[in-house]
């Protein structure tokens, strides 16, 4: 019997798991997919918002502003990439200037620090690539960028390191409520728990319904993005928003923590909760609208397009806390934007809710620190030399585009939460994320997985399920024993 089972291994589930791992509780995470961060947490704008955008008094406003501040602690403890690069909300018309004033006021109410309204010239002074059409901007120095999947991986690794059990590829099929306990069914067995924390992203309403709570629904809102080569990433320093509309924050242009440039997202409500397909129209919209902010963007620099789903709740706000209908069921649901920014605060609030319902004694040996895999690419020459001397596999580059070494890939396969798929390795090491998109390194990585984890190449997948990479063996090749 577990004390708490968290359903969903996105950034919210991982933040909650890590918070709960501070206590003497038996905690587990059930995830349907083959890795963490495979839903909304793996495909979003990667922005840590300042907190001016949310309506004052909402859970969104509260957790966004608090969460933003906690990212400094996360960076220190979890060794995640996070930079306060500052953001600019751009105005193209006098009407937009009114919107900026309104956002500024809202920011003050929400407790956002340091915001300032700039003239067009001042904005272009800070960001020379900006369009001449921009007449003003709201500067938000607290705005930052991070890597949502690296954050999720780091949180979950730290949770696992502190005793949380993580079950990947365990989709929940049914939930039975018994007196003071739940039985959660998965195709791989049943799990008994006193409490459930529902962090199931776009599926949070289905999980709630399984447990007997139909008080809300989740509408997936798809956003499409273009990711640019690192050469384009050098041209923009701040996160550049367009004035927000009814469907969200508009098309942004932002550098990423890895040095690429990201543009998007579109916003379209859809029916199908697994539909992360990109569309001709969507990508076209991203290309056209992003050029309004930064006219010099070169579309030939796009190395990848992708789409993610925002989990919009029917209530219009984050749904946080114990269900009114089902005691013992705690929701961390409807976490759309600014969910990534709010995650550190949401994790704390959900853990506090658990501690309201169960006695939570501090675990004296809780270790808040998660060491990252030593990163060859970002090390100086001296460190690189030392790494190679200690482990010659650091001297072997597997992914040329991102300078990822064999040692880093091997390390990703032996972490507290081991990578088992190509995409999982990509999220942990960036191998395959560069301009060739895995063309050169994929065959090498497959050999390393086979050697290190004894998963035959024939069985290896891109992202779990049926996503096998090869379909069969032909006559023996160079690596055949």
């Amino acid at each position, binding site marked *: 019997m577990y004390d708490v089972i968290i359903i969903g291994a996105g950034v919210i589930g991982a933040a909650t798991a890590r918070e709960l791992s501070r206590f003497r509780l038996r905690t587990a995470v059930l995830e349907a997919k083959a890795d963490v961060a495979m839903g909304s947490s793996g495909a979003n704008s990667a922005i840590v918002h300042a907190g001016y955008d949310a309506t004052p008094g909402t859970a969104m406003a509260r957790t966004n502003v608090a969460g933003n501040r906690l990212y400094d602690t996360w960076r220190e403890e979890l060794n995640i990439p996070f930079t306060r690069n500052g953001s600019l909300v751009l105005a193209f018309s006098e009407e937009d200037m009114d919107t900026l004033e309104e956002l500024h006021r809202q920011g003050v109410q929400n407790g956002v620090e340091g915001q300032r309204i700039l003239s067009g010239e001042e904005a272009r002074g800070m960001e020379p690539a900006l369009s001449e059409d921009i007449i003003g901007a709201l500067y938000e120095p607290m705005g930052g960028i991070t890597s949502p999947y690296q954050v999720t991986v780091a949180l979950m690794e730290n949770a696992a390191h502190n005793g949380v059990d993580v079950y990947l590829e365990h989709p929940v099929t049914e939930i039975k409520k018994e007196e003071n306990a739940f039985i959660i069914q998965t195709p791989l067995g049943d799990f008994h728990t006193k409490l459930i924390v529902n962090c199931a992203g776009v599926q949070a309403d289905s999980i709630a319904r399984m447990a007997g709570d139909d008080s809300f629904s989740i509408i997936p809102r798809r956003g499409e993005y273009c*990711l640019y080569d690192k*050469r384009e990433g050098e041209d923009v320093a701040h996160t550049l928003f367009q004035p927000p509309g009814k469907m969200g924050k508009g098309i942004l242009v932002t550098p990423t923590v890895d040095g690429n440039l990201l543009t998007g997202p579109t916003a379209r409500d859809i029916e199908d909760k*697994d539909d*992360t*397909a*990109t569309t*001709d129209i*969507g*990508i076209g919209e991203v290309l056209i609208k992003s050029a309004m902010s930064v006219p010099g963007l070169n*579309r*030939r620099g*796009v*190395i*990848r*397009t*992708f789409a993610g789903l925002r989990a919009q709740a029917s209530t219009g706000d984050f749904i946080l806390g114990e269900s009114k209908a089902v005691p013992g069921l705690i929701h961390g649901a409807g976490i759309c934007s600014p969910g990534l920014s709010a995650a550190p605060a949401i994790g704390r609030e959900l853990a506090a809710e658990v501690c309201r319902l169960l006695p939570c004694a501090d675990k004296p040996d809780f270790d808040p620190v998660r060491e990252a895999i030593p990163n060859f690419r970002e090390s100086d*020459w001296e460190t*690189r*030399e030392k790494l*190679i*001397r200690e482990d*010659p*596999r*650091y*001297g*072997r*580059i597997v992914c*040329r585009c991102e*300078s990822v070494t064999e040692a880093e890939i091997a390390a990703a396969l032996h972490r507290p939460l081991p990578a088992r798929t*190509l995409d999982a390795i990509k999220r942990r090491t960036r191998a395959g994320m560069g*301009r*060739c*998109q*895995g*063309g*050169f390194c*994929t*065959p090498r990585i497959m*050999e390393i997985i086979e050697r290190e984890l004894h998963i035959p*190449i*024939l069985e290896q*997948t*891109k*992202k*779990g*399920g*049926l*996503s*096998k*990479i*090869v*379909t*069969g*063996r*032909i006559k*023996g*090749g*160079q*690596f*055949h024993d």
Partner: protein
Amino acid sequence: MIKEVDIAVIGGGPAGLAAALAAREAGVEDILILERETHLGGILNQCIHNGFGLHRFNEELTGPEYAYRFAEKVKDAGIPYLTEAMVLSITGDKMIYAIHPQEGLMHIRAGAIILAMGCRERPRGAILIPGERPSGVYTAGMAQKLTNMQGYMPGREIVILGSGDIGLIMARRLTWEGADVKMVCEIMPYSSGLARNVHQCLHDYDIPLRLSHTVTAIHGRERLEAVTVSEVDKNLKPIPGTEEVVPCDCLLLSVGLIPENELSHEIGIEMDPVTGGALVDEGRQTSVPGVFACGNVLHVHDLVDYVSEEAEIAARSAAAYSKGKKEGKKAVPVSPGKGVRYVLPQRVAGTEPTELYFRSRDVYRGGRVEVLAADTVIKSRKVIKLAPGEMERIRLSENDLKAIHEAGGAEVRWVAEEETK
């Protein structure tokens, strides 16, 4: 510790091997080849089909056979090479930073550098195909490595997008292994591969080549399940109503090669936006003195024979440079005119007879290719057919070059039949 060499060759593929040999023949003793893979030979090692060496050796070799001839000569000549050596950085003053599992971090100061890093394939993102992101979508070269080097099938029912040579070769290769290659789609109205490959790899196996067609959607959440194929108009835009859903478990992309010039950018070499490679003179010297480039890192070649030839040109000038022949002659530009996509070299500095390589912009039948110096046609050649997929050459004599220098530059153009009268 800093190692010093007269000539460093970055890359041990066909360009690097031929360059190292030619540099040695030109009298340079102190050469070092740095190769990132575990074997010399570069991409040829996975090109097990034949057709290599027809021009150079007058026989049909496989890729590994062609590479072997050069690699053996390099070994026989005792030219030092280091495999598993990855160059991470080169500075303008020709200091090379490389890493190696056993040697660790290496600092190499070179008298001259020959860049021979080859090229990479354009990925799906670069051509913005919408749809889902399942497994089963690979570049043709990666599929070639899986099949020929590792012995795995990338799929069973295959659609190939792009009629580049690797895609054509893989259509035949996978057919031999029992795959059903359903079609090769080419967005242009002509194939971008060699005519001989279209015949030997597609026509001989009844694999349809769908010209003016492209893939407009990818379907399948986990493994690829189908692609949508659409016809395109003359502006290359998909024509609504022509969509056809083709079930398949594998989509191979053969949609272009990009010279791998990360190091060249870092040195600050002036680049040609059309070739994606460096701007060079006829000795293949880049804008940074003492840095030379050859092979697919300079511009994408269709035949390895020409890669070897170009590498030898670069090596001879690098050898001369390293022996102290550094005085710069005034170079004049050679530019592409009507109907010509690019000319290489992009400038000429001397008057020794040389060859211009060029590619046409479109498929042209008949007419003439002309070299103009000022307004004078100094060279003219009849054309049967020009195609962007086949590199053409024109030889320039000493007198031609003198005329070009006098005129301050030259232009290469194609003139249609009716205009020649």
